[in-house]
């Protein structure tokens, strides 16, 4: 029995077709994965189902009856609940307030908070979704916030739960807990649609999987009858190498040395404590850790975005701790920032301008205080070709490119300066499998050319396959370091959660 049936759904934004005649049937009580690369149209399809977008064509059937869903309110009434990729929570309100908003229990004209609290507690007990109903949402962890989102749906008596890339923000441990919750929900008869682009998760949690590619449905298959390799092929449309191969390291002189870096962040008190490590020419040092454990601060300190730290940073033997960003860039430090749209690019500038950011006042791009557009255009043509940036041309606005191509713009610009150290922070975040493969190749090529790479990433697979050595950050401290081969994925997960046994694995880090 199909609880949800989407028939022939199409939706376009401007002249890009996000959903192209998609059919989807979800059975009652199953966990159904919606698998696809970034930009495949998964979120769009589910937003149509949830009444946030209206489809250009096609119909929706819930429990066999055709319905028109014009607003989330209607979707909720039909028993749908959606947990969005970006949480829909208000930080300064409490867990209970966030859950009951829009459907508040009342006493007279006032909200009955006690009753709301009671209902939330009842739900947390039933589904083992432990969270403190009186806490402010901004004070609880990301994993707990996600549970609040699930509770919001359950409070509204959702029978069909849609989760949009729920694991993107979770630690491996939290992911495990989420999967346990999902199985519990399934046992109690709920239907779950699980959006992801991760093959491993699809294999682990789903009963059936529907693959989308470029806005089209490729196939629906039973998970037990498929393999990660087949899923990758269906998702990307060609054979994909899931793990890159790399040559043995040819390590040279020390490029970067961090010496007891300590950084206090007044606002939310995040800090780095006594960080010491070195990066040699020809090696990739990976920084593992759950977001918010000091990675961003580290990125900012090395690139010079923030400077008021204690401790010292040496680049090729020189103390650069007090150097400006520009001085560091000119000395040979390249930067792929973790937040590419805020710090790496100016989204509403075109490609050629973005490609000279940081060099715009310099020869040959500027002469006597005026920009030389001929040179600038030539430069962008070279980079577009070399890095295979998919675009309509050097005049295209960067905001109109896909995530992967935006990332290539940054990488192209940074590598063009021929840096000796590149700080790559979350270089493949929100980038599709094909582009990930390419970016990985580029980073390895830098390594082969004898440059140093500081790779900050939340993706364990990426860290394990690219880096020569690893440090693990937890609450601003290095809790473990060593050669990558000495870590297993499970062990890393525990360390990142501040649990496993840390220390230095054989092999030099200092």
């Amino acid at each position: 029995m199909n609880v949800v049936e989407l028939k022939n759904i199409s939706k376009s934004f401007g002249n890009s077709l996000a959903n192209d005649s998609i059919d989807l049937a979800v059975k009652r009580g199953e966990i159904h994965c919606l698998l696809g690369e970034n930009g495949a149209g998964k979120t769009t399809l589910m937003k149509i189902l949830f009444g946030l977008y209206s489809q250009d064509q096609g119909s929706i059937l819930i429990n066999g009856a055709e319905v028109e869903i014009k607003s989330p309110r209607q979707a909720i009434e039909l028993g749908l609940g959606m947990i969005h990729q970006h949480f829909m929570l208000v930080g300064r309100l409490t867990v209970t307030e966030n859950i009951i908003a829009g459907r508040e229990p009342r006493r007279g004209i006032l909200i009955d908070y006690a009753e709301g609290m009671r209902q939330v507690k009842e739900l947390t007990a039933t589904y083992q979704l432990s969270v403190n109903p009186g806490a402010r949402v901004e004070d609880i962890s990301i994993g707990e916030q996600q549970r609040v989102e699930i509770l919001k749906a359950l409070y509204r008596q959702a029978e069909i739960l849609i989760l949009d890339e729920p694991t993107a923000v979770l630690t491996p441990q939290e992911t495990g807990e989420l999967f346990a919750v999902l199985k519990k929900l399934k046992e109690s008869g709920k239907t779950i649609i699980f959006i992801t682009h991760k093959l491993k998760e699809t294999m682990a949690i789903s009963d059936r999987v529907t693959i989308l590619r470029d806005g089209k449905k490729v196939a629906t298959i039973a998970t037990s009858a498929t393999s990660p390799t087949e899923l990758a092929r269906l998702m990307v449309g060609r054979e994909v190498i899931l793990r890159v191969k790399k040559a043995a390291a040819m390590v040279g002189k020390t490029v970067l040395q961090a010496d007891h870096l300590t950084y206090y962040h007044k606002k939310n008190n995040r800090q780095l404590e006594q960080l010491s490590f070195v990066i040699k020419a020809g090696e990739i040092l990976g920084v593992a850790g759950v977001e918010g454990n000091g990675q961003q601060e580290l990125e900012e300190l090395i690139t010079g975005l923030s400077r008021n730290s204690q401790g010292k940073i040496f680049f090729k033997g020189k103390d650069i701790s007090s150097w400006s960003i520009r001085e560091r860039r000119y000395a040979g430090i390249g930067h792929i920032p973790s937040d590419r749209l805020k710090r790496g690019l100016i989204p509403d500038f075109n490609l050629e301008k973005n490609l000279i950011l940081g060099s715009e006042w310099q020869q040959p791009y500027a002469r006597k205080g005026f920009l030389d557009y001929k040179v600038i255009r030539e430069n962008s043509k070279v980079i577009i070709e070399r890095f295979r940036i998919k675009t309509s041309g050097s005049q295209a606005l960067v905001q109109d490119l896909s995530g992967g191509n935006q990332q290539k713009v940054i990488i192209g610009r940074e590598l063009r300066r021929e840096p000796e150290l590149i700080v790559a922070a979350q270089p493949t975040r929100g980038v599709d499998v094909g582009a990930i493969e390419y970016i990985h190749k580029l980073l390895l090529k830098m390594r082969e050319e004898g440059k140093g790479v500081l790779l900050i990433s939340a993706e364990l697979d990426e860290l394990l396959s690219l880096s020569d050595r690893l440090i693990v950050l937890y609450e601003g401290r290095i809790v473990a370091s060593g050669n990558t081969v000495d870590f297993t994925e499970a062990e890393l997960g525990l360390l990142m959660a501040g649990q496993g046994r840390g220390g230095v694995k054989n092999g030099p880090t200092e």
Partner: protein
Amino acid sequence: MNELLALIFNLNTLAAALRMATPLALAAMGGAFSERAGIINLGLEGLILTGAFAGVLGSYYSSLPWLGVLLAMIAGGGFAALFALFTIRFKADQVVAGVGLNMLALGLTTWLMQVLWGSRGSSPNVNGLPEITIPLLGRLPFVKVFFIEQSPLVLIMLVVIIAGWYLLFKTPLGLRIRMTGDHPTAADTVGINVRAIQYFCVIFSGVLAGLGGAYLSLGHLNWFSVNMSAGRGYMALAANIFGQWNPLGGFAASLLFSFTDAVQMRLQGLNLSIANELIQMLPYLLTIVVLAGAVLRSRPPEALGKQNQGGDE
């Protein structure tokens, strides 16, 4: 010296401050509602002015001051509805629209005064609101000054402020308003009608500011004069921020500003050898100092001034 202080800081000064705080506190509460729903309302100044004018207009033609008050609220709400239409429906820049509203209100009231009463300076006298004395409270020691021969609008303001606090923090509508100003998309996804909330809040802020304006022209005086609001809308905005987008806080801040104002007037009356202009600066100086401090600690609604993206696209 002590006598001088006693002359300045006493219950009568406080009573004067409470009266002067009335239009400020009402408009500040309007600001709280509008901004809690995510809309910056710089137009409070113009809405107060509109209210003051409409109040006199109503009283002039009907001889009934209460009808004037009603008209002031309707005019304030109506102008605010226009502002809401531009900022919410057409997504005009809220700051520009607010300043535009102020200029419109100033121009329109000045022009209408000329047309109706042939005067550039002020309107003829109209029937103002009669002062009242509350039977029991008016006999209490100390606090009786607040309840004897008091303008009914001062008392109404106190009730409105308390009701406003309940509305914002204890009722379902209040929770939805707060959610809208912080995270409109979140509100949208739980089925809250974000647009309706925003329209309600902006129009409500106009009604409140209009009521504040009516106090100026019918409670405090009984005529209208050009640019009668004299910057009170901006003071109210400041009081709202200082009061942390909370009607009670806005009231307390308004009281502080007005108290300084009242002290300033007393000082002027004493013929000290200080230039009056310097003394008159006091309330504004305090506003700046207080705001500089408050802005550092304050936490505006997260989505304040941003256009709502809810709904289809």
